[in-house]
């Protein structure tokens, strides 16, 4: 079977193409402990978003809506260009616009960042998910939501360090960017990358994307962006959606991109020690009770207790039988 596609630019294959992203390519699966190791490892893919090339045209949003057949609401204007106003269950990717005055040059910079799932190597959503198989991770790096297994609990929302998943109010399932797993599975790159007119969004193997980013960073440094760099945060084991930032030393200026994202310690505690210690304690208590019940003498009322009670209360008008 063929490996993942290495570009989003090419036209779709015309020949019959077998789905290349099956259960056998999963390297982790939510709420599933004993996943057999996959027989093959797909090449890791990545989407690289070059913020310095992005013109904020929203073609990616439009392509995302079209491909995923979603229907985001027609909202109000609230004084900004960002529409919808946040990621929604119907909008998996969003251009976030920040007007930032560079304190060094006093020049305005209009920072436009395409927000969406980062496809972490260590995905917090998957860690938090209680429903077996609702979130899966493939060996090519894609973290995907399997909606028929989703119970809509919203734990993924709490697990995600990037605030990405959204729960639908209609079908109560979690939605986010799939990195177009359904396209990648048949040899095509993500719809957003395909639609991006300036190739600010490119797609390929993670190694290629890192190399491509290096070229971009060199170019940006030559244009005076001394802190240009790649955003591939190690706190989540690296991501399969990466950014080229002109100011990689301060990701937060890009509408709150986390400076050093990692799965929250609270979530780690919840999904780690609490889960194991809690289950152990409950099992122990239940077992101890049963054992005690079986082996220990029950606390029975003795005949003299009844006698004492009768004595205290005094004889009744009649004998009871």
């Amino acid at each position, binding site marked *: 079977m063929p490996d993942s596609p290495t570009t989003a630019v090419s036209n779709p294959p015309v020949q019959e193409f077998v789905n290349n992203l099956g259960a056998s390519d999963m390297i982790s699966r939510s709420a599933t402990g004993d996943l057999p190791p996959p027989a093959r490892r797909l090449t890791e893919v990545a989407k690289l978003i070059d913020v*310095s090339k992005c013109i904020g*045209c*929203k073609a990616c949003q*439009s392509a995302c809506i079209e491909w995923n057949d979603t229907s985001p609401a027609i909202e109000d204007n609230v004084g900004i260009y960002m*529409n919808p106003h946040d990621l929604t269950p119907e909008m998996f990717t969003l251009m976030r616009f920040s007007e930032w005055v560079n304190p060094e040059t006093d020049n305005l910079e209009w920072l436009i960042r395409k927000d969406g799932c980062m496809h972490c190597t260590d995905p917090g959503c998957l860690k938090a998910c209680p429903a077996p198989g609702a979130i899966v991770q493939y060996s090519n790096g894609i973290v995907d939501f399997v909606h028929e297994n989703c119970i809509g609990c919203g734990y993924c929302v709490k697990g995600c360090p990037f605030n990405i998943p959204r729960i639908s109010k209609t079908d109560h399932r979690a939605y986010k960017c799939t990195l177009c797993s359904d396209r990648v599975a048949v040899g095509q790159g993500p719809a957003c990358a395909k639609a991006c*007119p300036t190739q600010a969004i490119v797609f390929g193997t993670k190694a290629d994307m890192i190399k491509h980013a290096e070229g971009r960073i060199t170019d940006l440094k030559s244009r005076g962006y001394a802190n240009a760099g790649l955003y591939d945060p190690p706190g989540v084991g690296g991501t399969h959606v990466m950014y080229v930032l002109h100011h990689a030393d301060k990701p937060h200026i890009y509408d709150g991109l986390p400076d050093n994202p990692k799965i929250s310690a609270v979530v780690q505690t919840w999904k780690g020690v609490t889960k194991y210690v809690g289950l152990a304690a409950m099992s122990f208590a239940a077992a101890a009770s049963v054992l005690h019940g079986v082996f220990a003498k029950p606390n029975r009322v003795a005949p003299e207790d009844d006698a004492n009670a009768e004595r205290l209360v005094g004889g009744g008008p009649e004998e009871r039988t």
Partner: protein
Amino acid sequence: MTNSWTDIRNTDLVIVMGGNAAEAHPCGFKWVTEAKANRGAKLIVVDPRYTRTASVSDFYAPIRQGTDIAFLLGVIRYCIENNKVQWEYAKNFTNAALIVKDAFAYHDGLFTGYDAEKRDYDRTSWDYELGPDGFAQIDMTLQHPRCVWNLLKQHVDIYTPEMVERICGTPKEKFLTVARMIGESSAPDKAMTSMYALGWTQHSSGSQNIRTMAMLQLILGNIGIRGGGMNALRGHSNIQGLTDVGLLSQYMPGYLNMPVEKETNLKTYLSTRQFKPLRPGQTSYWQNYPKFFVSLQKAMFGAAATAENDWAYDYLPKLDVPAYDVLRTFELMFNGKVNGYFCQGFNPILAFPNRAKITASLSNLKWLVTMDPLDTETSRFWQNHGEYNDVDTKSIQTEVIQLPTTCFAEEEGSLTNSGRWLQWHWPGGSPPGEAKHDNWIMGQIFVRLRALYRKEGGAFPDPILNLTWDYKDENEPKPDELAREMNGRALTDLHDPTDATKIVVPAGKQVANFSQLRDDGTTSSGCWIYSGCFNEAGNNMARRDNTDADGLGTYPNWTWSWPVNRRTLYNRASADLQGKPWDPSRKILEWDGAKWIGSDVPDIAPTAKPEEVGPFIMNAEGSARLFARGMLRDGPFPVHYEPFESPVANVINPEIRGNPVVRVFLDDVAQFGTPDEFPYAATSYRLTEHFHFWTKHNRVNAALQPEFFVELSEELAKEKNIPLGGWVRVWSKRGSIRAKAVVTKRIRPLICNGKTVHIIGIPLHWGFMGEAKKGFGPNSLTPFVGDANIDTPEYKAFLVNIEPTSGPAEV
């Protein structure tokens, strides 16, 4: 475009001024990012707003709308003063060395020959001093005080960096940075491309805006070379095609002129179109005008066009005015002089200025036919939509007939892009409901009209009865039939002029290109510049071979480009006087001693010797014009004039309001606002999320930019107490609108001539029909005045006032 979209990737410097390419042309803008990423090209943006294009620029400079000429003349002055001139190019390929008549002069904003009464010039003095041989006199040393170069130097002298700052509000340092960056492209191996759009055309000095940059590009040697050029980014996917095939009232197909009233016969008509060369040995290609004209007449009227009847010259309508542009047409309609209107693919009540006047005009009609794939506001102009279209339906008697048409994706045919590429496309879907192709509708109208003329006669039925209509199905001409007709064919066997035994094109065959057209009635061609698009080689527009032999993005076998598949106009100028490329790494053509060779079709006779024949063959001089002679109504050199509604007086001559030769109608003059009442400088523009008034009908686009807004600076918002996302009322002398406020750092107040000028930006995509929220547009406010030369309305600079308000009542 002189060049093509794909060629932009070859540039060293992109200047986006008078446009917002990333916003309005995101797909074409990819070539800018290619140039930046692969060549290290720089991008400069000069705009009143920090735009999406600015967001990826290397340098941004603010400018007050309507002052681009002052800015660019300032750059020209800088280049001359700092020797940033491509001298060999400027001397040999422009008219810098030609001598101008003594009578010509310029003082305080006006040239010789001005008649204030007529608002027009007598332009006879705006020409070269001719020698006894009939050729223009020349001084190649550029020493003659009356040579174009010295007149230009003198003309631009007042546009100092300080003056630029006073007029444009651009801080001097920022202006100088831009000038320095531009100046670098004067090196023969450096290229700058100018990408502009409606930000230059939609001004009362629109033509001159573009001309000023063209002059700068000539001085820098950037015309005709790869990565250079004057690149107009056409807004509509086929607006280039619209002008090419003559849909403007003053043109026939291929930019042939519509005859005017005083040209009562063909001889008179052609007498002003002889275009005798003004310098020895020059091509002056318009000498072929009669060939193109006669071939057009033969295409239209076939056998009815004969030498005896002047090729049916009398069949053509003659203009009684310079043009029936949209402003004039609606002025006539407003005055009750038009009673029927065919509106094909237009939405005038949103698209044309001063909506109140447009609505009143449409209400004067007896009938209005709209042909559109969408239910447009114009089709519903009579319908009350609360404050969004507050009309009294009962008082409107206009009968509206809506003819639903197909949209581009349901049609076959070609679209001509900005780079003059005619790209054939095929339908991607079937039309819904009763929608019909425009060809079918026009065919039906024609066939029925002809039947009426046949039956009833009429004052002059000949042009209708004799119109060539030889399509397979007369009810619906097919796109390929029309394309073949435009290409043209031989009506008899065409013999080689030098060898009468040789047949070049047999009768009935398609001509290869316009070089085979003749003025003796033996050829026909519906649009000479399109000749070659569908010849005996087949439909060249449908070619999809993206081979790029020299790796520089010529793609000669991808579709077809007019003229004769030439991808870069004036490409002869990419080589020096000896015919060697200025930059061998970006070679287009080279003179091999006998002929021109290279990857593009030479824009000159292939055997024209480089040192003899100038590269600008369409001009009688053979060179490009820094001095435009009498070709433009408002001056042979550009002059800074303020917009008709300006927050400041004209620094050069405070007495002059607007462009002095612009046509204005009296009722509109009464509706011009002044800064005391309307202190803020407004401008209108488009947003990337939408396409004109179409995509608000689409849920996806509507979700991405749902509601009408205006943009203003944080400073003005604070002054006026306008909160982010709050409601504001914006009004001009002509109307009032309500909008959400986008308060932004991207617009900052400018200081012009000591006065703080606040700018208000008004995007135009909303109306009262479709999926997006109901809203207004800038054209409820814009003035009913246009450009001096082509009457394009001044949408980009007008005056308004603003105040916070409450939201509208729901409707």
